């Protein structure tokens, strides 16, 4: 009887360790996406090339609940990931611009560097400037790049950490579009 108890204890501990080894320590769930929370609002200055079309400042709540939004946090110092995904985002924006709003949030960066990055990739979707990175904290951001998908009701649907590829982007866009 006692021997069985010991065997059971060893098996239970072994099972616990094995389960622990299977877990991904880098996996960081997004609180917003898990609970489908309404996207946190913010008002940020629009970067110079986009002011003619979008105005001086951009308030997210003016655009929530109308159509899905792709919110992309990036910085010019984030190499190579931000450089890999920029053309992917631009291509997707051009394909979906009548149904989905793409918004770039330049985070903890210098304005001149950000403008250089924008020119390098010819980004045409609106870009706002958050040198402090305050909005990133509201979104529970770990690092750049991170892309948030906000559905048509203005709720956070998913968060993708790291450079996003076309297949992943399309998958989330299909989820967000009714």
């Amino acid at each position, binding site marked *: 009887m006692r021997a069985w108890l010991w065997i059971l204890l060893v098996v239970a501990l072994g099972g616990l360790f094995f389960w622990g080894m299977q877990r991904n320590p880098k996996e*960081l769930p997004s*609180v917003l996406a898990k609970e489908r929370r309404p996207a946190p609002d913010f008002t940020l200055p629009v970067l110079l090339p986009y002011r003619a079309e979008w105005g001086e400042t951009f308030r997210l709540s003016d655009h929530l609940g109308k159509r899905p939004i792709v919110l992309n946090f990036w910085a010019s110092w984030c190499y190579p990931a931000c450089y890999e995904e920029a053309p992917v985002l631009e291509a997707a924006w051009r394909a979906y611009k009548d149904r989905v709003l793409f918004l770039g949030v330049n985070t*903890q960066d210098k304005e001149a560097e950000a403008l250089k990055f924008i020119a390098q990739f010819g980004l045409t979707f609106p870009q706002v400037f958050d040198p*402090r*990175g*305050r909005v990133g*904290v*509201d979104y*529970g951001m*770990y690092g750049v790049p991170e892309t948030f998908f906000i559905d048509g009701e203005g709720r956070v649907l998913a968060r993708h950490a790291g450079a996003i590829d076309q297949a992943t982007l399309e998958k989330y866009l299909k989820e967000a579009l009714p």
Partner: protein
Amino acid sequence: MRWVLFLALFFLPALGQAEPPPDLSPEVFRIARELRCPVCQGESAAESNSGVAVEMRRIIAEMLQEGKTEEEIKAFFVDRYGEWILYSPPRRGVTLWAWVLPGVALFLLAWGLFAYFRPRKVPKELLEEAERRLKEPPA
């Protein structure tokens, strides 16, 4: 004179190591030490100089100025990052085990040691047998 030189040599490195005073109050760093830096592995928001950690310290300083309590500040970050952001796991739910198990393990160890080294009662028959053998004349 030689002593002055010696002392100077002794204290100069210390002068070189003196850090500039941080621009935020010690209270900010005390709270930041209990929060993880989201970007870096194994650094608190007090030690890291990554953009997010710097911004976290700034937010803590601002919230303290608004008269927020430490609990409210921690709740602000937990609300955004989940309980992962806290260095000490909360004493409830699943993470309660992290607090309870060490105590349980210590108790089991003590109990096991006690049980192992406890003077055992020798059965009566054995004692009688020993007595009898002692009394027997050696063959």
